[in-house]
């Protein structure tokens, strides 16, 4: 079964702190996506990770991919309130056909 699991599902943190969201998936894939969704909005593309060891950074967010461990992480550095949102990882199990299987989402709340 194709499964994508995120951990934690809910995260409340203080501004200025660091934290990591984990995304585990069940079988081989070399393409992983991270998205952000604000309440009532659509999905905003954050990162596409295409190979083992890939690391991408944008502002306070950094994503990495370990295909051998079937694990991706989204690290938040010195969190600010504007990063409050739901974050989804998604995996393309179809070898490039982009049929994405999504994780459950991590609802992140950053308190001032």
């Amino acid at each position, binding site marked *: 079964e194709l499964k994508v699991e995120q951990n934690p599902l809910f995260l409340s943190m203080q501004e200025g702190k660091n934290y990591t969201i984990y995304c585990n998936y069940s079988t081989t894939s070399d*393409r992983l*996506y991270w*998205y952000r969704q604000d309440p009532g*909005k*659509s*999905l905003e*593309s954050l990162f*596409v990770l*295409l190979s083992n060891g890939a690391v991408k950074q944008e502002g306070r967010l950094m994503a990495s991919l370990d295909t051998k461990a079937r694990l991706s992480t989204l690290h938040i550095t010195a969190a600010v309130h504007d990063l409050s949102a739901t974050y*989804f990882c*998604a995996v393309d199990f179809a070898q490039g*056909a*982009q*049929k*994405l*299987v*999504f*994780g*459950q*989402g991590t609802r992140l709340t950053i308190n001032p």
Partner: protein
Amino acid sequence: SAVISQKPSRDICQRGTSLTIQCQVDSQVTMMFWYRQQPGQSLTLIATANQGSEATYESGFVIDKFPISRPNLTFSTLTVSNMSPEDSSIYLCSVETLSSYEQYFGPGTRLTVT
């Protein structure tokens, strides 16, 4: 990136009726997809809209319930047929960009069935 629009943005429909959702992209794309996001849940792929051939449906979704059209490389429609309250969801189209391997999502259509 691709700019994607959907119509309608939201609708409230009666049980037993059908609704057709339109998805328009500002550039030609090979692959278009339709997803469903039930309230407070994650996204589930309904089908891949193929230009010039029938859509490819994922497990649990059938053509009679969710007929899809893809008349050209910039446009697709999804119809939700014989609706029930369980169909209340956000329906999103997305497109693949071969140049960057990114997949972009439209703004979504929020459907409520009463």
